[in-house]
């Protein structure tokens, strides 16, 4: 009983620390650019980082079981490009249908990745590296070898990202819905808890009757679904589908999770952490051009900031672990 309350405090304080970092960042940016914390600017920030925000939820699940997925942006490109071409050549025109198709393609990609990793026991980084090439190439094939679907070709689909529902931008609604769902799913459903169990101790999970293979399949499928959704969002937000979109963007998603305190070795990480990590990354990306430093320095600073946040996180975790052990000895 006492142990549990200590653990709760620790996880609570780690996210509190991230929140403090985020608030400090926001204050600094506001000092440079006073309009940063206006509703319009915040909506813009969320919209421009919707893909990372949504997909870091999937990466959270994958990393919780000790895996990694670097094929996600190829899945995004394949699903986004597919609906882009379908819309361009008039095969579909319904926005909802386009989303469903993108998500279905993403789910299929994720399921294939999950099957290879869980059933053939291929290490996740190798398997997803392979699929990174395969899905990206398929994206190019779908695009007839590099064709774009521009704003004019996307018809009413692109309006989704500019329209509002109950006074709030639709893209923001999607982000909120995803986070609310995953907050509930990870914390209060049996499957959510199983994901944590598999990540903390796979053999113990196996012994306790959890089908570890199916959980592995599930997390990569979830990642695929969110990558498909990300593809649809990307195409709608930027009103453009290109086969090379988000090339290299998987690193941003992984970085968001790592900043948010998700452990690379599994078992540790929360939905709130993923959210804070994504927001910190988004704030840095928006702030750096405002500060007026050279382009090459911007990437350097972005990297250094990521490292600082992660190191602080790791050090705190170590302190917390030591304290927890102390409690146990007594």
């Amino acid at each position: 009983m006492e142990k549990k309350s200590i653990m709760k405090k620790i996880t609570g304080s780690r996210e509190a620390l991230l929140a403090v970092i985020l608030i400090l960042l926001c204050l600094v940016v506001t000092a440079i650019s006073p309009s940063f914390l206006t509703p319009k600017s915040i909506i813009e920030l969320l919209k421009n980082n919707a893909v990372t925000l949504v997909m870091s939820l999937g990466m959270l699940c994958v990393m919780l079981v000790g895996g990694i997925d670097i094929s996600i942006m190829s899945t995004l490109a394949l699903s986004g490009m597919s609906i882009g071409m379908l819309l361009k050549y008039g095969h579909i025109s319904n926005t909802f249908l386009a989303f469903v198709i993108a998500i279905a393609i993403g789910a299929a990609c994720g399921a294939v990745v999950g099957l290879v990793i869980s059933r053939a026991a291929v290490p996740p980084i190798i398997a997803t590296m392979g699929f990174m090439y395969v899905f990206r190439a398929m994206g190019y094939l779908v695009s007839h070898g590099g064709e774009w679907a521009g704003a004019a070709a996307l018809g009413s689909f692109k309006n989704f990202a500019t329209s509002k529902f109950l006074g709030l931008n639709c893209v923001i609604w999607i982000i909120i819905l995803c986070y609310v769902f995953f907050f509930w799913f990870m914390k209060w459903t049996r499957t959510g808890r199983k994901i944590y169990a598999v990540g903390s101790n796979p053999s113990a999970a196996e012994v306790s009757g959890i089908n570890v293979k199916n959980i592995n399949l599930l997390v990569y499928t979830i990642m695929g679904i969110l990558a498909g959704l990300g593809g649809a969002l990307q195409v709608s937000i930027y009103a453009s589908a290109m086969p090379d979109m988000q090339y290299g963007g998987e690193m941003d998603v992984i970085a968001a999770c790592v900043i948010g305190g998700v452990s690379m070795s599994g078992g540790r990480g929360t939905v709130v952490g993923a959210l804070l990590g994504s927001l910190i990354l988004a704030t840095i990306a928006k702030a750096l051009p405002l500060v007026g430093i050279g382009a090459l320095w911007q990437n350097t600073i972005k990297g250094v900031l990521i490292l600082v946040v992660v190191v602080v996180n790791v050090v705190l975790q170590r302190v917390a672990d030591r304290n927890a052990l102390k409690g146990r000895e007594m």
Partner: protein
Amino acid sequence: MNKKLVSAILCGAMVLAAATPVMADGGVADGKKIALVGKSAGNAFFEIAANSFKETVEAEGGTVDVVYPEAATADAQIKVLDNLISQKPDAICISANDVNALQAKLEEAMDAGIKVSSFDSAPNKDSRQVFVNQAGTKQVGQALLDAVLDISGGEGQWAVLSATSQAANQNAWIDAMKSIMEGDDKYSKLELVEVAYGDDEPQKSTDQTAALLEKYPDLKVICAPTTVGIAAAAKYLQDNGSACKLTGLGLPSEMQEYTGDDDAHSCPYFYLWDMQGLGKLSAYATAALINGDITGALDETFTAGDLGDYTITEADDGGTEIVLGEPLQFNTENIEEMAKLY
């Protein structure tokens, strides 16, 4: 069933192959075999030029073999060139993946009596006989700067949204704009406030555009000489109903929605080279090399079909080039038609 199908296709191909030279007898490329080497497969933009090259040569009675290396590297192109040299075409026209790495192979080709021309992206001056340049650096800089002057109404702040800070072509155009601006008084009221880099990513380009507007509330024009950057900026400016306008280099199909003279559109007009013209001119230049009308020396002239007469000029790298001309302007009048092509 399958065999029948295959033989039917083969028969069809033979008939076509036999018919083509007969149909276009006596052109400047009559009976000539030309190999066109691209950078890599899967670039729709390049294919416009490649198709135009092929059509032009075929209309003049020759044949073109378009070959793509398996990857966008110099190594992969060297493999392709090895194969081609053994097949002995009359000429090779190449868009090079590397400036210097292909020199040995291309010299080997020239020693074997194969003419070597290049377009789109040039190998160094010793690796080629002539380079067909889509648009001279100066002409691009001039066209873009004049667009900025025109759209801003002759004065005010403007900014550049580029791709990456290391992109050689982007930097060359930006430098050209800067030097033209300093050299002429009519640009004296224009103030270039910043060169921002969006890394050719929509997300980063959007952040950079937002930051430019934030930092310079009086910004009148953004000039984005990159296709991804201009589309992202156009979307941002148009969605926000910004008073800041846009020009640059872009793809018509991407920009169609944003091109217009009124306040509802963010981009009055923009530029890009004429890829069809580039393919056509390259075809005629290569044919002229084969026929010995030109050797690639400075000041030689030749006729490029209905494109007219062209003179070989000195290139920036010390070699020679043929400059296609000024970049093509896309505006409300031609955007719809051009969007179908590019």
